């Protein structure tokens, strides 16, 4: 059994490596690895398993698509320009408040969608423009965009790593808002202020002139869609048995409809939907393919092998190495890392008396930092793209993220170690 699982894992690794080498995309390489592994396993593998596996994170992809569709409508209707323009106009004299509000603007899209890429795509370019005007060098601006995007992906309510790992271990996705919120907000604020505090005063007039805000734009036009979203979610929680069960995707679709309805300009819904699907393809594709990979690994015993190897390591070694293992595995296989490493770790933590919710939250804040690492570089590449940074990827941009990234990793590791004392954070639900 051990040898068989090792063989299948070997086939998967080789196929993945060779396919990547031949310039096949990460998602398709992973799909090929899953299919090759399934075939190497032999008996019982069929097309049924491929489709079954594709359903593993289907619910999550719907949340993902609808949330991003909503954010893109808000952006297209001028909502983001309006908010950022407003911040500059009102707080340009106060660097502290400016940075503070920009941090929260950067946190929202990822918090709702669970994706750092969405943050970069929706507000990244605009935030980068303001930050540059504040006299912050380009590599630091890019680092801020990346780090805040990573923290936004970690931020509640939607954290895909925590959701995927919790689902895999039959653990309710409940109690994560507090620990995820505390860590991600602290991490984002530290990144923003560490990298952005030093600079020059902002030329408000120049920035304001460069941000085009439609004259008919009003605060309520941006506020109402968010209010609808929050109201729908809040009502479902406050009156759960009198209010119809809508689910997150429908809440986002209703908020999206509101955003389109109250927009000052006419928003081209079909084009936005198509662009949303287009820009999300790598991420949605990744979720679907990861599901297929997990199915092939479960079938052949590779998942058991990985789980067993993880849980039989000494606990101190595991906790001490999390800050390296999690980002590296994220860079390598992205979300696949959550069910493969997260699930056995939760089981182990449970057994060893470590609070699994708090510990998983801390891990789920470390994972997204790996999105800057090779071979995938997903969010890192997106950040470079929207800021127009043209210096060295590693020597400039990655180096600039180091101190805040280490701060976040250290803080999260401490949270894992002291998870028992931090259980009060779970009270928020």
């Amino acid at each position, binding site marked *: 059994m051990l040898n068989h699982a090792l063989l299948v894992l070997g086939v998967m690794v080789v196929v993945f490596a060779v396919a990547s080498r031949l310039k096949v*995309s990460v*998602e*398709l390489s992973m799909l090929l690895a899953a299919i090759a592994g399934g075939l190497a396993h032999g008996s019982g593998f069929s097309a049924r398993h491929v489709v079954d596996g594709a*359903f593993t994170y289907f619910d999550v992809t719907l949340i993902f698509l609808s949330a991003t569709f909503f954010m893109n409508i808000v952006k297209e209707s001028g909502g983001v320009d309006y908010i950022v323009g407003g911040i500059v106009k009102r707080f340009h004299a106060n660097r502290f408040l400016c940075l503070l509000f920009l941090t929260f603007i950067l946190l929202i899209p990822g918090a709702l969608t669970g994706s750092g890429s969405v943050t970069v795509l929706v507000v990244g370019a605009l935030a980068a423009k303001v930050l540059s005007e504040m006299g912050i060098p380009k590599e630091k601006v890019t680092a801020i965009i990346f780090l805040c995007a990573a923290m936004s992906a970690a931020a509640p309510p939607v954290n895909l790593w925590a959701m995927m790992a919790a689902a895999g271990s039959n653990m309710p996705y409940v109690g994560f808002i507090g620990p995820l919120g505390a860590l991600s907000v602290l991490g984002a604020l530290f990144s923003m202020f560490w990298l952005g505090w030093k600079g020059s005063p902002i030329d408000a007039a120049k920035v304001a002139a460069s941000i085009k805000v439609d004259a008919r734009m009003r605060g309520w036009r941006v506020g109402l869609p968010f209010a609808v979203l929050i109201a729908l979610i809040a009502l479902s929680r406050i009156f759960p048995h009198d209010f119809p069960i809508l689910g997150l*995707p429908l809440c986002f679709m209703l908020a999206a409809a509101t955003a389109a309805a109250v927009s000052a300009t006419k928003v081209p819904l079909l084009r936005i939907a*198509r662009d949303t*699907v287009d820009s999300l393809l790598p991420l949605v594709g990744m979720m*679907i*393919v990861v599901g297929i990979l997990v199915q092939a690994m479960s079938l052949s015993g590779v998942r058991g092998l990985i789980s067993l190897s993880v849980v039989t390591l000494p606990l101190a070694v595991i906790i001490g190495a999390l800050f390296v293992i999690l980002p590296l595995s994220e860079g390598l296989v992205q979300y696949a890392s959550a069910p493969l490493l997260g699930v056995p770790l939760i089981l182990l933590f449970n057994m060893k008396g470590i609070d699994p919710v708090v510990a998983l939250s801390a891990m789920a804040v470390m994972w997204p930092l790996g999105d800057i690492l090779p071979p995938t570089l997903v969010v890192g590449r997106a950040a470079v793209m929207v800021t127009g940074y043209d210096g060295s990827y590693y020597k400039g941009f990655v180096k600039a993220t180091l101190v805040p990234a280490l701060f976040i990793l250290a803080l999260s590791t401490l949270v894992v170690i002291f998870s028992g004392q931090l259980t009060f954070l779970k009270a928020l639900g």
Partner: protein
Amino acid sequence: MNQAVMLLYYATTAFFAAMMAWNFARAKDAQKALLYLVVLMPFVMRLLRLK
């Protein structure tokens, strides 16, 4: 009410699936087109009420 919500979910799924199919047809990159097909699997399966 639950029935109505369920119908809206089929509509949402169909909406995104249609966008994917459209993008698949227009895709200039073969790998991208193939990935669209992979992603379409669960969407179409659900719409056909097979899974």
